[in-house]
């Protein structure tokens, strides 16, 4: 049976076929995130301003399968950029998707690029 988790597959830049134009840079909070809808998917996108980087990952928290990660706080764990789920504060690396404070499965992360004031997320399809 396909679960909602199966919709989310980590994507490398090399494999990107679609750059989805999500929203204006100004729509995102600084050092915070928001959720982008792409087809059937919910993607959490973070503007990590302190690092001058953007990150994207599934909005689905693998702990209890809730669509909440975009509402989590970001920060770093000994230098690794991370997001903390707002429900039970499980933390995930924004670089690799790895769960940093327990042994949940990694979340899917996606490439992001910013062009002409717009944020794009990369998908295979």
């Amino acid at each position, binding site marked *: 049976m396909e679960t909602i988790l199966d919709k989310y597959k980590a994507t490398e830049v090399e494999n990107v076929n679609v750059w989805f134009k999500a929203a204006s840079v100004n729509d995102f909070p600084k050092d915070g995130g928001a959720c982008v809808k792409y087809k059937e998917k919910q993607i959490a996108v973070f503007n990590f301003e302190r690092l001058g980087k953007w990150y994207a990952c599934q909005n689905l928290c693998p702990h209890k399968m809730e*669509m909440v990660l975009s509402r989590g706080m970001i*920060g770093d764990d000994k*230098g690794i950029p991370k997001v903390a789920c707002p429900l039970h504060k499980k*933390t995930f690396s924004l670089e690799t998707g790895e769960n940093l404070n327990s042994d949940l499965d990694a979340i899917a992360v996606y490439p992001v690029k910013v062009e002409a004031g717009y944020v794009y997320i990369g998908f295979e399809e």
Partner: protein
Amino acid sequence: MQHIIVVGNGMVGYKFCEKFVEKAESKDFKITVFGEEPRPAYDRVHLSEFFESQNAKALEMATAEWYADNNIDLITGERVADINRTSKTITTARDRDFSYDYLVLATGSSPFVPPIKGVEKEGVFVYRTIEDLEGMLAYAAKLKAEKPDARAAVLGGGLLGLEAGKAVMDMGLEPHIVEFAPKLMPRQLDSRSSQVLKLKLESIGLNIHLSKATNQVLGDGAITGMEFGEDDFLDVDMLIVSAGIRPRDELGRACGLEVGVRGGIVVDNTMKTSDENIYAIGEIALYNQMIYGLVAPGYDMAAVAVEQIIGNTEAVMPADIDMSTKLKLIGVDVASFGEPFMPASKGHSIIFENKTQHLYKRINVSLDGKTLLGGILVGDASDYSMLHQVYLNAMAIPEDPSQLILPASEGGAVLGDVMDLPDEAQICSCESVTKGQICGVIENGEATDLAGVVSCTKAGTGCGGCKPMVADLTNATLKSLGIEVKDSVCEHFDLNRQDLYKIIQVKGYKKFNEVLDNHGNGGHGCELCKPLIASLMASIHADTANEEYAIQDSNDRFLANIQRNGTYSVVPRVPGGEITPDKLIALGEIAKKYDLYTKITGGVRIDLFGATLNQLPLIWKELISHGFESGHAYGKSLRTVKTCVGSTWCRYGMDESVSFGIELENRYRGIRAPHKIKGGVSGCIRECAEARGKDFGLIAVEGGWNLYVGGNGGANPRHAELFAEQIDNETVIKYLDRYLMFYMRTAKPLQRTAAWQERLEGGLDYLKEVIIEDKLGIAEDLEKEMQTLVNKFECEWTQAVNNPEMMKRFNHFINSEDEDENLVFVPMRDQKMPEPWV
């Protein structure tokens, strides 16, 4: 393998086991322990704490598993009924036989109940076991339900009787102490100090009756009074007998061991009885023709018996046993040490007395004025630990010994520094821990803080009287090693909450990044420091959570409580729980319109569940138009001030609890604190608002309000402690402003008032000095800061719905108006709930 049977699993019987298993030789022995009580040994010294906590587990000396792990067979609920010395066996009440090589009697004592007519009546209790206390609590509850002004008396005005008197008071009964002697604590105090103590106790509401010989207990079935002589009666509904103890020597007597005239099994200084295979320790042992009714000598006896059994025959009990004591709990300082009374032929006494302040201090010094022999302190025993040490270690005293007890303003000397004590000074007499051992575990790195010292050395785990001194020694040693005590908030700062508070206040920072860049460790923050700094900036600048929403915690970020499926619940403020029918109807209609699950919260407000992010502003616009404002249920801030209906309707009410509750709730609403804060106001001592379960609680009494602070429910329930009595509304607000602000300034992150207060060095007394007496000279600042917060209050939901920029965040998607299609609700009792988690 030799077999040791321990009879009695009380404090001393347990200590024997603990000391025994620490010995390498213990592997050659097997221990079996019999205890008559249904549970493993517990801390009887702190028995009175059971009234507050009702948590028997918390008093346990060690868990049942501990005995098993240490290869000790613990058999509880089984009394040893007989000893057969020739066959070296015992028989239990269940008729089981066990043989022993060594027998250790640790059967303790039982309360002495004088043979007064009627003493068997219902409502007469003794004070020794957890079961006794459970019985009292149940009886008191029943009494209070039938009779709001019920009274209880304690027979006996000794150390224990006064402790019981306080317990009676805490149970909400009118307390009376009945003493046969013409003075209180006859064994520890002289007549003048006992007179001062009487005045002090009366001032806090205890009724004292001295020189009263009780002839009979009156009542038909249950007690209704006591009769002392012709026409001399006291009406009481309950009686606690605390008239001394009797050693439980019945086993020893029956098998022919030597016993004392007034009871107790005779032992020599090796703790052996008249049978060399049988030892007696604790309150059963008659040593030097004395029963020592304190734990410390009992623990020493346990240690001696252990050494003797494993063959260290030179370990013996000292001839002199320190009987110094400090009364705990009652809220009145009383202590006596060494030789409290002194015939003039043996030394000089110096006495300082101030009846109006209920102060009495006496010291006895040797005839040559060089050594301290003993003393009594009533009203202020803050110098007890130091004086006790000076006495124990025969330390040098000032040429003018009166300096030891005179107030500093009248030429009194400041007592020496704890670090001046000799290394062998015994700091904790219950566990025989010396100053050298305490400093040692820090110096060799075994312990790095007070908790570590306590767990390494066990100092302070007995009666607890030495705790302040252990803390002083710990801090002084750490300081001497140049160790800073760190409790930084997370990996991004080397600072604690209090440091950050000061920095933000002084520098006026308004952005998280300013604090991080100037004072952080070069990282980027995390879910610990971000909400903390958000809360500090809010406390200091009276900002709402709408500032910099990305650093706010899950709930503050969207001004609502996130629920398990990612939807939110909405709680408008209902100050004091007072709500008009029109507002109730409005709430109902809004809940219906948005299909929200509706429930009354534990804080007696109305909670509407299941709102999506997109719905939150719509719901709030409607709520605001009906006159509601944010209830801050999502913030670490004031939740509710729960009130009973008070004198406006209630036939017992002494004051308007609702009006005052509303005033307080409106005063402190919205203020961000280290943790949530709850308040309660009751119109009389029946306490229908459960105010003592709150961070601050008020109870109307004759002549004003009693103010309680530091209570909470939650995982570790605590009753708030009495802070000030019979104060008027204005004073309540003054004290609360200062209290809350001081808490906000100094607590640790996510520390509620109870935990903060408990860990505050100097405890409640210190807090009173700061808040009431303004010892630190900060009261005015605290009041001003609070007033600024009060003046700047703004409803953050009103602020948000009127600001399109702030509204942007209330959308599930940034690029679509759609709702989250993954939300699934299922029906439940005519309402809905989120689909269960798998």
